[in-house]
């Protein structure tokens, strides 16, 4: 992951539910009422980069400021849906950078089962993506619903596969170069 990777930056900006463990004076602006204090036990969605930093105190031995929770995109409900049928879930509406987000979350939480579910999801959907990418009509034919639900990683995979399939077709003289 490079410093200038726009996808990494956007992943950092995704929200994670956090619970404050301490009273914080003057930080009410996060909750929507500026000038107030934040009380212990308040739940606020914070961006990944901020939540990660605030929760890190626990590892350094000091008392931590917030505890992290799993985001909705990786909640049990979503994982159950993914277990049932990975292909019908609209990952993009859950989180635009679903896989990058889960990669970061898995660094923070120990979730053995989630790794299995996600790898299986990615595999199943990758096979589907490849089938769509080899369709000469591209993203316009049937299956547009599925393609709209791809997250950013999957979109890049789709684009790469589609481009190489198209280049080969152009080389073989089966379709015209545009």
């Amino acid at each position, binding site marked *: 992951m490079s410093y200038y990777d726009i996808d990494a930056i956007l992943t950092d900006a995704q929200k994670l539910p956090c619970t404050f463990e301490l009273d914080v004076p003057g930080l009410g602006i996060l909750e929507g009422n500026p000038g107030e204090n934040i009380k212990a036990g308040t739940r606020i969605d914070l961006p990944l980069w901020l939540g990660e930093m605030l929760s890190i105190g626990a590892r350094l031995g000091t008392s931590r400021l917030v505890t992290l929770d799993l985001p909705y995109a990786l909640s049990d409900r979503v994982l159950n849906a993914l277990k049932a049928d990975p292909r019908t879930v609209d990952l993009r509406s859950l989180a635009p950078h679903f896989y990058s987000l889960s990669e970061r979350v898995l660094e923070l939480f*120990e979730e053995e089962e989630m790794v299995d579910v996600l790898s299986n999801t990615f595999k199943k959907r990758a096979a589907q993506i490849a089938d769509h990418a080899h369709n000469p009509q591209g993203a316009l034919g049937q299956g547009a619903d599925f393609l709209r639900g791809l997250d950013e990683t999957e979109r890049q995979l789709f684009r790469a596969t589609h481009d190489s399939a198209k280049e080969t077709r152009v080389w073989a003289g089966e379709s015209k170069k545009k």
Partner: protein
Amino acid sequence: MAFPLPRGITPPEISFLAEMEMVTILPRQRLEGLELLGGPVEPLIPPRRASVPLWLALLLKRQRRANILPPSWLHPESLSFILDIETQYEEYKETFSPPPPLPGQPFLHDRGERAVATPRFTPDGDKYYPAPPFLPQNVARDHVPAQELQTLPFHWLEVGNMLLEAASEDLVDPDQTRRLLKELREVRMAKIRSGVDALDAAAMGGGGVALTGVGAIELGEGRRFISGVIDGLRRIGASREQARREELAEEMANGGYDATQDDDDEMEF
């Protein structure tokens, strides 16, 4: 990131490389021998057959100075035979028809046999063993072992397409050949795509993807998909991999795992 071109090489580049393959021609005019960077070309004396690089053969063909003798695998019969193998046989459901054997190497089918590689010699007298792409896989030969008729060389699609384009009247049944090449390509492409399940093992380490017998163009087409899937799976499994490494390191540190390692350390002191 900053480099605008995608990973891998493009189909035109692959077919450019394929033009180095040697093919057999039947010259119609005399031509003196040429000293080329890729090696000397023997003098062309009709009606004697000669082996020349594919690009030269195509050039001579366009100028109507030679006819190209199609390689034996580009015969509709052997192509439809290969297509049968790929589609009908259960054991080839997920694998591809084997590549031609290296000279002196036993076939994939009979693994038990010992390899008797016959070395060749450079002008300086050094020994060497030829390897693709410097093997005469596309020249016309009088005696082809029956087993070799079932194999596709590395550059089959490129050579086949170029010959169909430039020298279709030299082929046995161009329309049938074209149809068979296309079908073969579709069957094999579908196999590459359905191989995603095996990619998981490759991402977790210890596994691999069997791409034996896959041609250059097919590799070029599938490269970005395959590497993309492996990379995605690797990133999802990164945390587990990390945990596994830490466990291993801990076991090593506790000393119960590898006693020989400790001995080595003592030796150094």
